[in-house]
């Protein structure tokens, strides 16, 4: 716990990437495999299922601190983090624990789940007695499942790669999917022999950067493949060893949400991994994303749901074929194989001979695949002007814009510039009035940074969107001051403010909603700019925005 706390402190005390990597590297070099496994588990944002109810923990903390419950709420309001508030409230510590992280997690933390209330109380009080101030904070973070340290998975991977001398891509692959944080896992992670066996494991996704330039900087249009940017759930469909798996980009195994896709995937040969987008699709048309959201919200997918919101996979890319990782090959080659595969054309079964020329000659053996496994159509153009023109049709096609991929590009890891770009259509906008404000979390915990905006409807402001990004630090500070000086009412952490400030909000989509008072729900709302030039009464009406439906 001591070394891990020091690691946390070191990561927290610097904003420099190389210093963060160095701190992790030196931790992994000296920590035991068990501790390292748990450290990776927490550093990559994984967390145990809820161990103890937060209100119980808070009650315990205020009793130990000798303050009333309302004082916790006020303190939390200033701090913005439950674990930290508790650590700051507890009487000063006099001890430091030398026990290793794995010991604390396995013997103290995990047993809390399912323990009796009294056992939980005893265990937590005992832990607070043994840990120093900073260790208590870490412990509380682990306990409340809110452990975040501001390192990306990419950085953890780079540190592990430095320690093990294994390529980052291999480490990334081994870290995907479900794994248990054990010494064996860590040893496997650092294993120089990179023939991994886990059949469910997806590849790290390659993500595109937003394109904000003039098209000609990309060179010749003939070197690029353009596709529509579909609005669904980016996923990998894996068929290996007679089993199928669907992983979301968020590294969640979502196979059970889409039984019809799993059913169709048996048509794929073993050793196939497809990268694509799950879309709600009916009668040759993509449905709004909100329909899909309804579906993923349900734990059990009913027959009716499957009929109302049928799904397909719009395949973008082929990552593994015949059991061979083909991510290094050029996009043009992978795409060709993908098309042959999904059109039921022939392909060689010997991965060593996987070339387009040879697959042309081979006899058909793949079965004809269904309507549910589709290929993302190319947008065929011969000039940048024509491409730009095509993008203008995005909205009517219900897509977000275009994807531009270099034909020669390999399938890389993570978000990288250069070969893949997303070129979205300009968002919808509206001018809305700030009506509620709430404090942010983490870095912005002591500022009012989370806002709710309203539109006019018969002389009243109806809440339509929440947004917390898009302003500069200086603007945030000014709005924070406005909120403090113009609070009309407080409801817990939420303040109702004088309806005076107008912001231009951008959003990606709009859908009908029965759950919202306004009758609409907007996607990805964010603040474009502060309309200091506009008085509140000139903000948009609900009617004008509803017209976009």
């Amino acid at each position, binding site marked *: 716990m001591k070394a891990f706390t020091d690691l946390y402190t070191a990561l*927290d005390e610097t*904003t420099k990437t190389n210093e963060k990597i160095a701190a992790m590297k030196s931790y992994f070099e000296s920590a035991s495999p068990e501790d390292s496994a748990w450290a990776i588990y927490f550093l990559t944002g994984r967390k145990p299922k809820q161990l103890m109810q937060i209100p119980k923990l808070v009650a315990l903390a205020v009793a130990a*601190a000798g303050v009333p419950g309302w*004082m916790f709420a006020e303190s939390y309001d200033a701090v913005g983090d439950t674990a930290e508030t508790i650590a700051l409230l507890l009487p000063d510590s006099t001890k430091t624990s030398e026990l290793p992280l794995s010991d604390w997690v396995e013997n103290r933390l995990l047993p809390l789940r399912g323990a009796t209330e009294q056992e939980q109380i005893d265990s937590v009080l005992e832990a607070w007695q043994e840990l120093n101030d900073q260790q208590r904070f870490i412990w509380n973070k682990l306990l409340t499942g809110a452990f975040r340290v501001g390192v990306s998975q990419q950085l953890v991977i780079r540190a592990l790669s430095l320690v093990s001398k294994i390529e980052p891509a291999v480490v990334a692959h081994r870290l995907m999917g479900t794994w248990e944080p054990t010494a064996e896992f860590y040893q496997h992670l650092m294993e120089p022999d990179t023939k991994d066996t886990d059949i469910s494991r997806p590849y790290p996704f390659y993500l595109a950067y937003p394109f904000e330039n003039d098209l000609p900087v990309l060179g010749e249009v003939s070197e690029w493949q353009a596709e529509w940017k579909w609005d669904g759930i980016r996923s990998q469909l894996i068929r290996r060893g007679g089993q199928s798996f669907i992983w979301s980009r968020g590294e969640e195994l979502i196979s059970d949400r889409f039984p019809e896709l799993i059913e169709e995937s048996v048509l794929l040969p073993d050793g196939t991994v497809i990268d694509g987008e799950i879309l709600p699709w009916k009668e040759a048309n993509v449905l709004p994303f909100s329909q899909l959201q309804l579906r993923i919200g349900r734990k059990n997918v009913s027959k009716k749901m499957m009929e109302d919101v049928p799904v397909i996979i719009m395949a973008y890319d082929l990552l593994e074929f015949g059991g061979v990782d083909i991510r290094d090959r050029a996009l043009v080659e992978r795409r060709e194989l993908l098309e042959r595969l999904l059109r039921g054309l022939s392909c060689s079964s010997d991965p060593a001979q996987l070339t387009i020329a040879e697959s042309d000659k081979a006899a058909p053996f793949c079965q004809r695949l269904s309507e549910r496994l589709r290929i993302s159509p190319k947008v065929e153009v011969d000039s940048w002007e024509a491409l730009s023109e095509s993008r203008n049709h995005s909205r009517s096609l219900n897509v977000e814009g275009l994807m531009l991929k270099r034909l020669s590009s390999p399938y890389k890891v993570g978000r990288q510039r250069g070969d893949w770009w997303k070129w979205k259509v300009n968002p919808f906008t509206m001018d809305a009035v700030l009506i509620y404000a709430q404090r942010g979390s983490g870095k912005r915990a002591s500022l009012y940074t989370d806002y709710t905006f309203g539109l006019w409807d018969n002389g009243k402001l109806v809440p339509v969107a929440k947004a917390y990004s898009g302003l500069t630090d200086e603007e945030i500070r000014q709005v924070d001051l406005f909120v403090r000086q113009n609070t009309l009412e407080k409801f817990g952490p939420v303040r109702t403010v004088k309806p005076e400030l107008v912001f231009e909000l951008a959003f990606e989509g709009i859908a009908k909603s029965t759950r919202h008072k306004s009758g609409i729900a907007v996607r990805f709302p964010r603040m474009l700019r502060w309309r200091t030039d506009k008085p509140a009464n000139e903000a948009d009406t609900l009617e004008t925005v509803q017209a976009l439906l």
Partner: protein
Amino acid sequence: MVEFAKPAANYDITNSVSTPDLVKLTDAGLYCEYGDFYIDPWRPVGRAIITHAHADHARPGNTHYLAAAPGKRLLSTRLEPNSSIQTVEYGEAIKIGEVTVSLHSAGHVLGSAQIRIEKDGEVWVVSGDYKTEEDATCAAFELVPCHTFITESTFGLPIFRWKPQQTVFDEINKWWRSNQEAGKTSLLFGYALGKAQRILSGVDATIGPIYTHGAVEKVTQAYRDSGIALPDTQYVGTAPKGTKYSGSLIVAPPSAQATPWTRVFGTVSTAFASGWMRIRGTRRRKSMDRGFVLSDHADWVALNQVIRDTGAEHVIVTHGYAAEMVRWLNEGGIKASSFSTKFEGERDELQPTDQDSESTEESSETDSGIGAANMQDEADLAPTTRTAAAAAAADVPRFF
């Protein structure tokens, strides 16, 4: 586990007879009608008693000022030239109208004072800003028993508890040393008045050279001129071109962070010394490498201790977590209410004051700020004593 002490109920409400309010809240600030003077007014008035030189307490524009003698030189650099400033020693009682007034050390910054007002045996004390931990750059806090105590509550939540300052200075020294070993410059931000000088007095000056930002140097000079011993510092504005800063410590006001001024220092490690650094989110939002929890305000424990020890029957809470403090005291059996003042307790260390930013600009290019300060200093170099104060008072209309 140890429980925090709750303030004890040390008076009996039923016995208290109604007494006149010696201090009232008005549009211009805290006002004593029996002496016809204000305390730290935020609008220009005829007579202002100033608790200390921080910008939200000592505002220019008043006709006459009264302040504690040790802070006179400092205060004069914060007001218009030739302001009418009269001083009294700590503990020296003077009669103003119907009340007897004395100033008592608040331990906050050089010359900081609590204002004691007495009328017919009834005693009110206005704390100004205060801390109880000792500070080598100012006199120690003096506990003043009273019936009504008007207290600040900048850090009036139980999450704000300070470590002994030596622990913090040790952390700062360690940080400076390790930066030095890594060839980095240590850039430490702290409030230009008070915090910066306390840091200078506490760091191990043998580690390396110490440089200052103009705003800090100006105040530091005023401290030295007031007889406070501080290690040698070199003002960045007069350092020769091409000075290598690596390994040194640079003390600057928070407003200088991320300004062009910091560009010449090479690879820096940044840190901020403030009570607000107790909260991780605040430190991260400031984008500092380190945060040192060092405050010139009383922490939660000290606030409660002082309130209880004054024996006050009524506590009036001003800037900071006033509502929370009032509720806490009332629940603990101490009658409390609040004054909504224009003191910026909650934010004064988080936001640049006008004086900080002015100095940032002037010192980034020229050294005029320092030159002007020195000139002013020469005209008034005598240590502040009774005689000096009396002499100064003779030239201008008297406060009382």
